[in-house]
């Protein structure tokens, strides 16, 4: 009565967790921009769009990667806006599902209304990061890419985009992979020694082991040292323009911005508050702070402004101290600046050299906000200030993500412990604990070891609509 072969059927009732419902969100940052994009993804994307979109043809019949002009309306009578609808059919969309992007004119009110209309159809509001999560679950991107996308979203400059892409391309991953496999290699010798402890074979001696660990540590240190640079690439450089009233701080800013945002005037003390502008020079984000001229004054508003200038100096990465050819350098003020920020972070600029080109006054750069003379030199100095001596190419592995930085720091600590165990002549199993922990820490960077935290971290960093 032997039972015959027949594979056992397990209960295959499917957990209804597949992200099949349709979601919507504003994909561009909220606020007034030239154009807002509303993104819809899921099975009912086309159907729902057709309920509110009135164009020449139905979206549901449209082929992938086509753009359609039409009007949006809730009832087909009152039109809200003219829009362009882009159609993406599964799996060739960002999320891998059927999706639609509606581009509208910039008013937040209009986007809000359109989304409300969509929510009345079979669509729900997306959670933060849900589009990317779907892209990930549908195999459109891997975890490292998802993390890089999160970085790109938060990035503001070309270089930072490059950095993120560089990560997408795996320069950092490759480096970490390499370190991790040499670590695994070293620790497998330790394990062999333990497994065959009874036999008279030495697999690796402690000097050699220590040397290998040290090599990996050196690599990690190198990577860690790129973090401040990586951070600059991501977050930008804060630059304060400081000097006595009327030396031309605002004019310099304006020159750089090529637009008259700050008020330029002949009356000393025009700028009473700190003005902030962002500008990208060679792909690096500089955040310029135009400060109020610093001098003693009775006037309340000005005092307040000066106080703020001091704070701005403290918070900046670089200070451009400006004086002009018509007055001599205010050493008292300069010395005060040196109490707020280290000397090597201050660039002394002499302005208005168009008036007195052959001046004997001393400065790091000689410029004119009026003619633009010396400005190139100033930019060069600024860049040199930020990067110091480090050479950066797209092939360099750079750590710009705090999570990665923390993992590397941890790995480093474990390796230090392992070296200590070796020097204390402890046996292999003690060395192994730290080596394995270090392996895991490196593994977390590249997703070889994933934890919930990482996933949360990655998907929570997104805003709604990404």
């Amino acid at each position, binding site marked *: 009565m032997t039972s015959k072969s027949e594979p056992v059927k397990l209960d295959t009732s499917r957990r209804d967790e597949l992200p099949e419902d349709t979601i919507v969100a504003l994909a561009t940052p909220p606020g007034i921009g030239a154009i807002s994009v509303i993104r819809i993804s899921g099975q009912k994307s086309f159907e729902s769009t057709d309920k509110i979109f009135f164009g020449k043809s139905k979206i549901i019949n449209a082929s992938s990667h086509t753009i359609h002009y039409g009007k949006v309306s809730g009832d087909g009578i009152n039109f809200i806006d003219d829009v362009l609808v882009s159609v993406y059919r599964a799996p060739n969309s960002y999320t891998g599902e059927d999706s639609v992007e509606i581009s509208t004119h910039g008013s937040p009110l209009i986007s809000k209304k359109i989304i409300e209309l969509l929510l009345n159809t079979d669509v729900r509001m997306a959670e933060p990061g849900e589009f990317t999560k779907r892209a990930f679950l549908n195999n459109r991107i891997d975890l490292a890419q998802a993390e890089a996308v999160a970085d790109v979203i938060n990035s503001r400059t070309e270089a930072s985009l490059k950095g993120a892409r560089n990560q997408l391309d795996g320069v950092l991953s490759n480096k970490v992979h390499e370190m991790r496999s040499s670590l695994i290699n070293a620790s497998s010798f330790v394990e062999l020694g333990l497994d065959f402890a009874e036999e008279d074979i030495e697999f690796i001696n402690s000097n050699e082991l220590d040397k290998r660990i040290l090599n990996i540590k050196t690599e990690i240190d190198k990577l860690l040292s790129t973090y401040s640079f990586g951070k600059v690439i991501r977050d930008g450089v804060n630059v304060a323009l400081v000097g006595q009233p009327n030396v031309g701080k605002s004019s310099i800013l304006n020159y750089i911005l090529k637009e008259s945002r700050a008020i330029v005037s002949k009356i000393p003390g025009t700028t009473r508050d700190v003005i902030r502008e962002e500008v990208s020079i060679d792909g690096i984000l500089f955040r310029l702070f135009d400060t109020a001229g610093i001098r003693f004054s009775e006037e309340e508003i000005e005092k307040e402004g000066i106080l703020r200038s001091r704070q701005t100096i403290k918070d900046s990465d670089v200070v451009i101290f400006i004086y002009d050819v018509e007055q001599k350098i205010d050493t008292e003020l300069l010395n005060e600046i040196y109490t707020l920020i280290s000397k090597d972070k201050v660039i002394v600029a002499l302005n208005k050299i168009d008036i007195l080109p052959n001046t004997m006054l001393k400065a790091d750069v000689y410029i004119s906000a009026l003619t633009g003379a010396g400005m190139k030199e100033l930019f060069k100095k600024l860049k040199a200030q930020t990067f110091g001596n480090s050479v950066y190419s797209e092939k360099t592995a750079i750590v710009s993500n705090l999570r990665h930085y923390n993992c590397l720091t941890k790995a480093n600590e474990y390796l230090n412990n392992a070296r200590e165990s070796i020097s204390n002549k402890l046996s292999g199993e003690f060395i192994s604990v730290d080596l394995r922990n270090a392996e895991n820490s490196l*593994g977390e960077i590249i997703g070889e070891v994933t934890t919930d935290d990482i996933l949360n971290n990655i998907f929570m960093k997104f805003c709604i609509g990404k």
Partner: protein
Amino acid sequence: MREFDIIVVGGGHAGIEAACAASNMGCSVGFITMDKLAMGRMSCNPAIGGTAKGHLVREIDALGGMMGIIADRTGIQFRMLNKSKGPAVWSPRCQSDRKLYSEEAYSVVSNTKNLEIVEASVVDIIAEGKKVKGVITATGEQIQCSALVLSSGTFLNGLMHTGLNSVRGGRFGENPAIGITQSLINMGFESGRLKTGTPPRLKKNTINWNILEEQPGDEIPQPFSYQTDINNFPHLPQMSCYITYTDETVHKVLEKGFDESPMFTGRIKGVGPRYCPSIEDKIVRFADKNKHQLFLEPEGLDSDQIYLNGFSTSLPAEIQIEALHKIKGLEEVEMVRPGYAVEYDFFPPSQVDLTLETKLIEGLYFAGQINGTSGYEEAAAQGIVAGINAALKIQGKPEFVLKRSEAYIGVLIDDLVTKSTYEPYRMFTSRAEHRLLLRQDNADRRLMKYGHQFGLIDDKLIEKLSTREDIITKSVKLFENMKLHARNINPFLESKGSSGIDSAETISKLCKRPELTLKEIIGLNGTEQNPVVSSLIADEKALEQVEIELKYEGYIKRQFDMVDRLERYEATKIPLTFDFLTMKALSTEGREKLNKIKPRSIGQASRISGVTPSDISILLVYLKN
């Protein structure tokens, strides 16, 4: 028609543990073996324990198993291996009297209540609607059961090779088991073929002992079992092993036989153990080593045979004897029986669950070499788990699965099920990622509670353990605060070559110095008046635990870092009904493997080869949805 709650097939080390555990848990057990006098027979070397295997024996013992007890009663040499390393890799090992071991095993089994030994050969397994119902023996008898543990060792279609000669059999002079494999294949199981080997047996009085290096047992031998009375231990007179080596001339002789090696000529289809290789494997694989260590191990107190450990081979007998004569001390040795290789059927263990119940047939359990392991200890460890789970199932109680962070047994079974070995699996300490916590010295602290819960460990033992636990906790706490003063301790430190202290230092800190022992430190003036200290001094085992906890505190803490990190993975459960096949985001290989093995947790899933890290991330994201 005979009927039992549980039938255990196969009287080896796995079967003994399964049968005893299940019957001690109150189930009626029919223990079927082809030859009851062969019960617990050691088919390979006459030794129990060794690196990592000794850990398993201690764990089996803490759960209330038999192996440690039998080994203690029949051991003729006890040694703690790896003493030069840290306590986590110390491993107990003993040489056993082969004959007495088997007799003792028989006596233990036959004295177990609820258990009936049935001498028979099983030829078929009965299942109805994917549920096991019983077995049919060679005489045509049907025996019924609610659960069946298969622990048939190397006997399934066993084939023994010496040179190009092969004989059907599971062990020298014993018949193979035919029929069971086919019966399982008919039910839908997938089978494979493995091989293992034994070395030649030598005649004791033909060896030139005088020129060989002696290896005696430990001066103070330690028993395996927590139940062994230390005052009446060891039971038997103790013997020594001896060491000799092969050399290049020996290797040359062996190489002559490679043409007739069943391994190299492809006659053996089974995959052999990578870690316990035959001498011919060693010569080929470690070509740059010009000698290999061999141990001459006594087979028993009054046995005239010697087991040549390290010389496992299946080369032709003439070659074996010729090579032996080139070995120091064996110049005139007589070979009682040549070494041989055994090939046998196994069932890739992805087909069982973590309880060792097969996924295909309810109530059917696999334990031991049938799951692809090698070694008595690995077999016994599975036996006790299968026996306990079979009994729990019949009693309608929750299953018993040990975590990887709890026991080598947990590591063993998880590895089997998850990685589904295709070569004989042997335990190593490196397989346990939580090695520093899974020590042979604390198996009782880790596992005895379970043995007690199942009624396999009596109240007295558990009370003793909890008293000790109390002393340990109090002592650790005390020593973290209790300070010794410079004037009292510096002379002692100086005498130990340890640097003096300035004012005062806690005992916990002092204990971390490698050159000091806790016993010496607390033996210094005054501390022993403290009641906690005096109770600690009175309990050697507690003292050892406290010393390890203090000395290696930092490491143990970092080991816990890893446990915590991994435990969260283990704690993320995957529902049994989870359908991997519909998850298109998974890699193709990952999806197939996941579907086959059906892991219970993300942790288990992450250990499956072919499942990529990104598969794991995808699962995590899914499970969080």
